[in-house]
Every structure is written in structure tokens, then in C-alpha cells.
């Protein structure tokens, strides 16, 4: 076999189309686009070049829309796809099984902190997938929706994403950049006659993808796909799947469901199953989604995306046992799946096994992930697993890597370390620093209040607690703390109200119940 000679610049005999194709295969999309552009300029009817250009542009701007689901503020507020208005617990994403008291699934709220949606803090932030607030919220829907649709990780004062914002803006931004890019002109789709193209499935498929992923015009794609699927006499699963996708993007969920189901009937693929499950999740029917996942996992045993999606769903439903079991399965198959590793680390950390969490975090580190969050988790796991020499270096590294918003969390954790060591001065300063970076960090307020109380500044402590419970009504600690302080000061009415608020946030809180009992005794004495 002759060794292939390397390409020389003077070797102009290479078929330009072949050249473009090889660039495409090597993921060098810009070069590919340039070459296709020149080909099309020579012969504007060159179908092969047209198809390749479509494919290149699509591949350049492709976004895995199964992973990325951005629900804008308007969608969250005016969600009327939900079928049941008063769902039974466990059958809707808005009413997950009431937290940890259900047969001991996972640690209680006293051990594992709860995020603003009312579910335990997860290990891996996915972009806005589990954004629906649970029904047990005290704040009204708008504030919660605003806090939710802000990008996770940023402070709550960040901006919410408006409807389909990311998708639209990406499209527009890249259009603009393409204009300056010499090679590729955008293809004018307005004048295209879909009938003609429908008869040529290869071109039509490339065009459809282009419409969906680059131009973000699901309507047009819908027309094209409808024509094409008719041409293919409804036997091609690919067209039905694309149809379903377009319907989903347009918000016609029931039609999307139909298309996906018939596509699965033709030829079941993992992707279609996942998209069908996503439709059910959007309709707030987690049990139907679970069924789809089950069937898919039977058909494609061991497929990771199905398992991961199922695990995510169980986590959203607050069933952490099943979720963890599935993540373990994922890790067994795919040892570098960051999401599974992170979730397992969080779970073990909060179940009192920090050394196991440490091992998972180390594996993530070995994979090359190096972010503030990971170093922070490593530091905490080391500290609580009693590996003190490593703990502080990790936290230091986390601080170094931190950009603005996240360093508040790191300072907060440094404060916790300080409390653990007994150095209250260090803790005080760290909490203040955390607050200076993120003034809405309720946990820092609470801890600062406790430290002030120790120093004897009762009013400042009360102020801090009331600030914290105003910022985060889902936390029970500040409410309970201010109830206790009010009780000690003799303000029983205030203590009673706050203790009830604490119980609302965490119904199993033993101390709040004791406090209420004592208050009842006091009230009855009159």
C-alpha cells in the first residue's frame, strides 16, 4: 500500500469538492465553507456543493437541543401545557414526592441544603432544565420564575432569559458574522420551492437541518418536512423525527408526540425516544416520560443518554435512591461522564461519606475538569474527610480560578471551614467577604447572624436573619434562628410566626416543633 503523500500547496489538481469534503470531515468548517462558496460561484447549480455547504453551516452551529433547553421567562410564567391543576404527589414535576421523609429516600433537609425550587441541591447544574418551581413555594410565581430563569450560578440579580432568547440571538449573531465571512453567503430560503426539493431526499435532509439549526425557522422546516414525508409515503423515520422536533419548537406538543410515536413505530432510535420523553416532560407528565425511558432502555440496553435522562428525571422527582442507582450504572459504563460523577459526589457528600465524594471529585479532576466549583467541592470533601492538609490548598485554588459570582460561595465555604476549626474571626471575615461579592447570599447572612449573636449584637443578628429569610424563604435556618432569638427576648408572637415559617420550609424540623410546643404552653398560661 502506497503511503499517502502529504498535500503540497502547489498540488492544485485536487478536486475542490473532495477537498471541501475532507475539510468537513476534519471539522474545519470555515475552510470548507470557503471552498464550497467558490464552487457555487463557479456553478450556481452545483447540487453537491450546495448540500455540503448546508451541512457545514449546520454542523458549525449545531446545538444539542436535547441537552440545552432554555425556557424563557414568558414560557415559565404562561405555561398552560400542564394537564393537571392539582396533581397528586409524585405525578408531576411541580409536586415531587415530599422530600426525604418518604421511606428515607436520601438525607433530610437538615443535612442536605435545598435550592430555591424546593429540591435538594444537585451536583451538576444543567442549563435550566429543572426550572419549574414546586408548588410549595411561598414567593409568588413571578419572583421564583425570575430567580429560576436567571442563569444558574450567577447571582439572583442576574437577568432572566426572555423567550427563546438564546436560540434567536445565536441565529442572528451568526448571521451577522457570516456576512463578514468572505466565503459563505447565506442561502436564500424564501424563494425555495419545497415540492421540488422534497423529491430529492438527500438535498432535502440537508436543507431541513439547515433550517432548523441555523436559520431557526421551524415553520419553514415544517413545510419542507411535511412535503418530504408525504413523498416518502410516511415510511421514513427521519422525516417524522424532524417533524416532531419542529412541532416541539413551535410549542405544538401533542402533534410532536404523535410524530415521535409514529417515528418510533417505524424505526426506533435513541434520539427519537429521548425527544419523545422531553415532550412528556414539557407536558409535566413525568410518569409517561419514565415509561418511554424504560422502553428505550430495554431496546437499547446500556445506552448512556437514556440512563442519564432517567436519572435526571428521578432526581427532579426527589427520588434520590433510584437516581443514584442509575448514575452508578452510568459510571460503570462510561467512567468519564461528568454529570454522573458530580451527582454521585454530591450524594455521597451529603450522606456522610465524604471520602467517597472525594474519590469522585478526584476522578473529575483527573479528567481535566478544572473549575472553581470542582476545587471547592474537593476542598470541602477533604476537610470533612479529615484530610486537612489538602483541604485548604484546594479552596485556595478554587478562589484563584473563581470569577466574580462564584467566589461568594467559596468564601462562604471558607467561613464554614473557619467555624469547623474554631476560628470565628476568620469565619466572620469570610462571610463578610462573601456578602460583599454577592449580597443576596442568604446562607452567609444566616451564619453572620449567628456569629453576631455570639458576640452579643442581638439587633444586628435579628437584622441578618430577617434579611436572610426575606431573600430565601425556602431555608428554614434563618426563620428558626430568628424565632429562637425572639423567644429569648420575650416576643412570643413574633417567635410563633417565625417558627411556623420554619416548619413550612422544613416540616420535619424537630427544634421548631419543640419551640412551638413551648410557645403553646406560654400562650395557654394566659
Amino acid at each position, binding site marked *: 500500500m502506497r503511503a499517502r503523500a502529504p498535500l503540497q500547496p502547489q498540488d492544485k489538481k485536487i478536486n475542490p469538492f473532495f477537498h471541501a469534503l475532507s475539510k468537513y470531515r476534519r471539522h474545519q468548517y470555515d475552510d470548507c465553507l470557503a471552498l464550497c462558496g467558490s464552487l457555487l460561484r463557479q456553478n450556481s447549480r452545483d447540487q453537491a456543493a450546495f448540500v455540503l455547504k448546508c451541512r457545514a453551516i449546520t454542523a458549525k452551529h449545531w446545538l444539542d437541543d436535547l441537552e440545552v433547553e432554555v425556557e424563557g421567562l414568558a414560557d415559565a410564567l404562561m405555561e398552560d401545557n400542564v394537564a393537571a391543576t392539582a396533581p397528586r404527589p409524585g405525578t408531576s414535576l411541580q409536586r415531587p414526592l415530599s422530600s426525604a421523609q418518604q421511606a428515607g429516600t436520601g438525607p433530610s433537609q437538615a443535612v442536605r441544603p435545598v435550592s430555591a425550587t424546593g429540591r435538594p441541591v444537585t451536583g451538576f447544574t444543567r442549563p435550566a432544565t429543572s426550572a419549574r418551581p414546586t408548588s410549595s413555594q411561598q414567593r409568588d410565581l413571578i419572583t421564583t420564575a425570575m430567580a429560576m430563569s436567571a442563569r444558574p450560578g450567577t447571582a439572583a440579580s442576574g*437577568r*432572566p432569559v426572555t423567550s427563546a432568547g438564546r436560540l434567536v440571538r445565536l441565529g442572528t449573531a451568526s448571521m451577522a458574522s457570516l456576512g463578514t465571512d468572505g466565503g459563505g453567503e447565506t442561502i436564500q430560503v424564501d424563494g425555495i420551492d419545497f415540492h421540488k426539493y422534497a423529491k430529492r431526499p438527500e438535498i432535502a435532509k440537508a436543507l431541513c437541518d439547515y433550517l432548523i439549526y441555523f436559520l431557526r425557522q421551524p415553520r419553514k422546516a415544517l413545510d419542507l418536512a411535511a412535503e418530504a414525508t408525504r413523498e416518502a409515503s410516511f415510511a421514513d423515520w427521519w422525516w417524522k423525527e424532524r417533524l416532531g422536533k419542529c412541532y416541539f419548537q413551535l410549542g405544538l406538543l401533542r402533534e410532536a408526540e404523535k410524530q415521535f410515536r409514529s417515528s418510533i413505530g417505524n424505526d426506533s432510535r435513541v434520539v427519537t425516544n429521548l425527544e419523545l420523553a422531553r415532550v412528556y416532560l414539557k407536558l409535566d407528565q413525568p410518569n409517561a416520560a419514565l415509561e418511554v425511558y424504560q422502553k428505550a432502555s430495554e431496546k437499547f440496553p446500556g445506552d448512556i443518554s437514556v440512563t442519564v435522562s432517567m436519572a435526571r428525571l428521578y432526581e427532579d422527582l426527589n427520588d434520590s435512591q433510584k437516581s443514584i442507582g442509575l448514575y452508578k450504572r452510568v459510571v460503570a459504563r462510561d467512567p468519564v461522564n461528568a454529570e454522573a460523577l458530580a451527582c454521585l459526589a454530591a450524594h455521597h457528600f451529603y450522606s*456522610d461519606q465524604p471520602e467517597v465524594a472525594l474519590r469522585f471529585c478526584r476522578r473529575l479532576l483527573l479528567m481535566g475538569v478544572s473549575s472553581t466549583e470542582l476545587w471547592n467541592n474537593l476542598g470541602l470533601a477533604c476537610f470533612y474527610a479529615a484530610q486537612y*492538609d489538602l483541604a485548604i490548598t484546594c479552596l*485556595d485554588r478554587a478562589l484563584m480560578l473563581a470569577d466574580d459570582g462564584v467566589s461568594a460561595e467559596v468564601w462562604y465555604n*471558607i467561613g464554614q471551614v473557619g467555624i469547623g476549626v474554631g476560628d470565628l474571626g*476568620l469565619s466572620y471575615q469570610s462571610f463578610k467577604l462573601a456578602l460583599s461579592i454577592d449580597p443576596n447570599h442568604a446562607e452567609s447572612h444566616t451564619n453572620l447572624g449567628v456569629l453576631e449573636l455570639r458576640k452579643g449584637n442581638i439587633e444586628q443578628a435579628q*437584622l441578618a436573619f430577617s*434579611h436572610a429569610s426575606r431573600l430565601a424563604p425556602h431555608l428554614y435556618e434563618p426563620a428558626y434562628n430568628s424565632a429562637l432569638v425572639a423567644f429569648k427576648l420575650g416576643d412570643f408572637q413574633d417567635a410563633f410566626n417565625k417558627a411556623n415559617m420554619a416548619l413550612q420550609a422544613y416540616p420535619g424540623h424537630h427544634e421548631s416543633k419543640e419551640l412551638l410546643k413551648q410557645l403553646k404552653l406560654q400562650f395557654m398560661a394566659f
Partner: protein
Amino acid sequence: MISVGSGATAPDPLPPLEEAIAKERDDAASPAAAGGGGGERSGTQDYQQRKSGPWLHAWHDPVAGMVCFSQHMCVADLHGDGDHRLVLVDRKKRIRIYRGTSIQWEQRLLEPPVAVQCFYHDTATPPIPTLVVAAGHQLFIYRHLQPYMKFALPPLPIDEREKDTWNRLEGLPEGEGVEEAFNQLMKLREAGVQLSRRSMDLLAVDDVAQRAKTAEEHKGVPLVQLPAISCMETLRQNIDQPTGVSVVVVAAEAFSHKGIIFILNPHVDKILRKVELDGTPAFVHCLGLYDVEYRLTVATRDGTVHTIKNGALLGSAVELETPCCGLVRLDKFIFVGCMDSVIHVYHFKGKKSHSIHLPCPLTTLTGLSLPRLRVQRALLVTLNDGQVRLYGNNGKDLLHSFSLLNDDIVTGALFGQYGREEGALVLSCKSGAILVKILSRTSTLEPARSGSSLSDGEEATGGPVPAEQDVPLNIPKKTRLYVEQMDRERQSAVHMHRTFQRDLCRLRLKTARAYVSNLVDMGQSPTSVPSTSGAGEAHLSLTADVIGLTGPHFDVQLRIHNAGSHALSNVCVMCVSSPPGLYALTPAMAPLPLLLPQHTSVHTIRAQEQPPEGGGAPTGAGQVRCFVVRMAVEGRGHQAARPLTTVYVQMPISEGG
């Protein structure tokens, strides 16, 4: 306090109906259990638990429609045929007699009844008891299910002066003399005279015109004060046998806050004895024999428990903290149920033994007494959440507890012989249902120890050991990794410690540096450290929120909290946008009202993003810096160089005009 023992069981898995009946029949191993009306197992589907602890479910009628209290229920062998009947009266003036699972007899009463009792008035054969229903101030006696006699309690003596006052009013036409009568009665009351109900009504009326009307209503009606019966019991006269002749003990309210106990002879035509006491009696319990020696325990509505021994009121009375809602006497102990969900247990001589704390208020308190068992006595408590609890050992052990289905609450409970079954518990529920349970013959009223038989399916947690001790703690397993790490610690302990301390010092230094730089920058945070710039006790804290989704209009809401103890005046807030010119702030400088101590005042500033000069690209979000400054007052010092507090507010990105 002695902790309550546990005996609560998990309910048995539900066996089908026929199997359960056959099983119970085998268990009982006696034909008598299956016979008799009370043994019918015609439970409805709701009560699928055939066996629940020592209780066998016998009968449930969910639509009986009789809501009875404990005093309205009684069991007796009304026809002398050994088949005891259940007599129920309710406030709808009905009396109903149940035989087995069906109604034998039902009639209307003349007045709403207060209590019902059955007792033997003489020793004839066959022994037919008398049924007496107390209502108002009268006793209605039934024999052979026919109304037989009526006995009215004598009216109470009224003070002469009161009689005179009313007599005087009689002669006068309407409206006249009412005021004098009123004043007279008021004087009498202040002098401590017990007034009749009519006078109390008149004294209670405030309105003058109304008084005349009230007085008018009572004219022409003779002034009598009749005692109002509140409860009734029977006391054996000389033989302590179930068919022994008994006397009737009636407790009534005489005047307000005064009660009388009447003891009537078995034929209910003569009053044998009368005892007066302070406080309206609510519950009465009898012990002993009338002819020999007897004790009556009386609980009054104002929370006192008196004892009457042989007709004389004893001086020592038990004072309760909360009013009493149930009274039971078993042997030597008095169980008093109070409204604060506690049952106090007293020795009959008056000394307190212990208390039983309940999770929720109790509705009825009944005593169980079965001579055939070794342990003869137990206490039955029903709670407000539908639970029915059985306590043994003088209330120290919780033997068993079950809950009624359908959120029902028991209003009346009675334990006695029903049908041919000796240990039957009849429960009347708030929904009008009647429930009959039978104490199983194989059960003893003892806490379950290993080998002892309370019922199958029960854990042997005898004694005062609480059930919570059996639940294992949720400790995670020791992992191998943990052991390895412990090893590492043990081996390189010194090195770890040194590294840790060095890192800790470095961390402290770093934190302190960051903190100081934070302070020096005069508060980058919206919750800044208040500055004590010699401006007196100026403890201010300032927080800021941004309202507005997309702009270009935003509202910055400042909350200024004065945490000090003095009010602060002459302060104003100044705002600056940075980069300058990005936001147009209205108002840029505003005086604040008087800042009261411990008070948060809210101030809003409108920020509008200006389009960039010269049409350049939008520069992104900026900051708005707000300062709270003390204003210079004419002729009084110069303006402070430093602001009191500062806040830098990060504005969100606006989506343009």
C-alpha cells in the same frame, strides 16, 4: 413523669372476611362466641381489619344516626333473658334500644335527656331492671319498655327577699318598678344571696327598655328554681352483685356555681340524702355499697374533684389546672382527663400518682373492668384524632391503640356486657355511627412480653421502653476508603498537621487582606459595613434591590435600616452612575425623612439607561453608586467628608429602548 409504654402494632395484613371469621371461631373454640347478637360479624368493607390487638371487630353501623355521649349509653338485660340490650338516648329526644345488630324499640322523649341508667329496683325473678332517663329536673322511669313513672326533683328554696321583690313587681303595671326591682336584686346579689335564674336573667340585661320587657315576660309565672340534672349514676345498696338492688345518685346544678347531689331510693320516689357542694357537678363516680360504706367522686365544671364519703363532703378536694372532661375510677385510683390533653391519676385519698400525656385532646374516658381476667382493670381513652387507646397498669402502659377510619371521632364509649358477650366495647361516633368491638378472650390486659398473648403481630416491647429505640440509626457503612484514609492520617499525622496549620495561617492572612481591601474601598457591597466616622451612634445598614426585567427603565429600591437607638435626621441619599452618564438617575439627590430607630425605610430611585453618545455599540451594564450622607445644616458644623454608608448596585443588562 413515667413514660408511656408502647404496644402499638402495625395492622395485620387483611385476610378475607370468611377466613377471618372461621379463624376467629377456631380461636375462640366455644359456641357461645359465635352465638348471640353481639357476635355477628357483619362488618362493612371499611373495617377490614378483623382483629386489631385485643379487639375483635363485631359490628359497625355507619348510618345509625345517633350521636351519644358516654352518659347517654347504657347496657342492661331489660327482659331478663340473658341477652343484654344497648340503650341509647340522644339530644334529638329519642331513645333507642338495640338488640344485637338491629333496633328493638324506639320512642320519643318529652325533653332532651341528660343521662340514662339501668338498675335493679328489687330482687324479683326474673330480675327486670328499671330504665331511668334524666332530663331537665325530672327522672322518667321505664319498666318493661313502658313509661312507668316520673319523678321530679323538688324545687330549691328561694330567698324571701327575692320572692318579695318579684311579688311586688307582679302587682305593678308594665314598665313601672322595674328599676327598683333591679337595684334590689343587685343589692341581694352583692350581699351574697343565691338568686334564682330569673333574677340572674334580669340582672344580665343592660338595656333599660329590654329590662322592662324581660320583667314583663316573667309576670304571671310562679317563681320556682328547679335543679338542673347534670349527671346520674347508680350505687349498689347492699349486695355487690350485678343484679343487686341499687340506689340512684343524681347530681344537679342548684344555683349558679352551686351543686347538689341527691340520692334516691330504688323505687325512685323518695330522696334518701342530699349533699350540697360548691361548683356545678359534671361527672360523678360511685364506689362501694350504700348501706355499708360508699364514696362518690364528683368532678365539677370549674376544675375541682370532690369526694363524698358516706354522705359527707370531704374537705380535701383536688384542684385541676384545666377543666375536667372525663372521670373514671378504677379500684383505688381516680383518672381525671383534662382539657390540656393530660390524664392525671390520683390515689383515691387525694395524692397524685402520675400523669399520662396524650398527643391531642381526649374526647372520652372509660374504665374497663372484667372480673374474669387476672388483671381486671384497664383504661380506655379516645382522642380527638380518632384514636382509641387502651392503657393498663393504672395508666402506665399503653397496651394497644387503633384508629377509626374515615376521620371519625368517638363521642361516647361504654364497656360492658352486650348480647351474651361479656367484654364488649360500644363506641358512638361523631358521624352518627355505632361501633361494637369485643375484647378477645385470649387477651390479657397486660403489656406484651415475650410469650404473653396480646395478639399476634405485636412486637415484644414490654414495659416502658419506647418504640423509638427499635428504629436503627441511619449511619452510613464504613467504607474501605475511610479505613485507608484513617491509616494515612495515623502514619503522616505530624506532616498533615504542619501543612494544615501553615495553610490555615496563610488563609487567615489572605482573608484578612481581602477584608481590609474591601473595607478600604468603602464598601463594594450593597450591605456595607457601617462607618463609625465619629458621627455619633449612626448605625445604618443599606441594601439595594433592582426592579425591572429588561430596562431601559430600572428602579433601584434602597432599604435603609437604622440599627441604632437614636433617630437620625438630616440625611440624604446621593446617587451617581458609573460609568458616568450611562444612567439618568431621578432623583439624583433626595433628602430622607427622619430615620427612626429599628425601622427600615424604603426609597426608590429611577434609573434610565441612556443610549450611548454618538450611536456607538451598547457598552453593557454599569453600576449605580448610592451614598447616604449627612447634610450640612446652616451654621452647625461642616458636612461630613465621608458618607455614612455606601452601596454599589450592579445594574442588569438592558435590552435597549
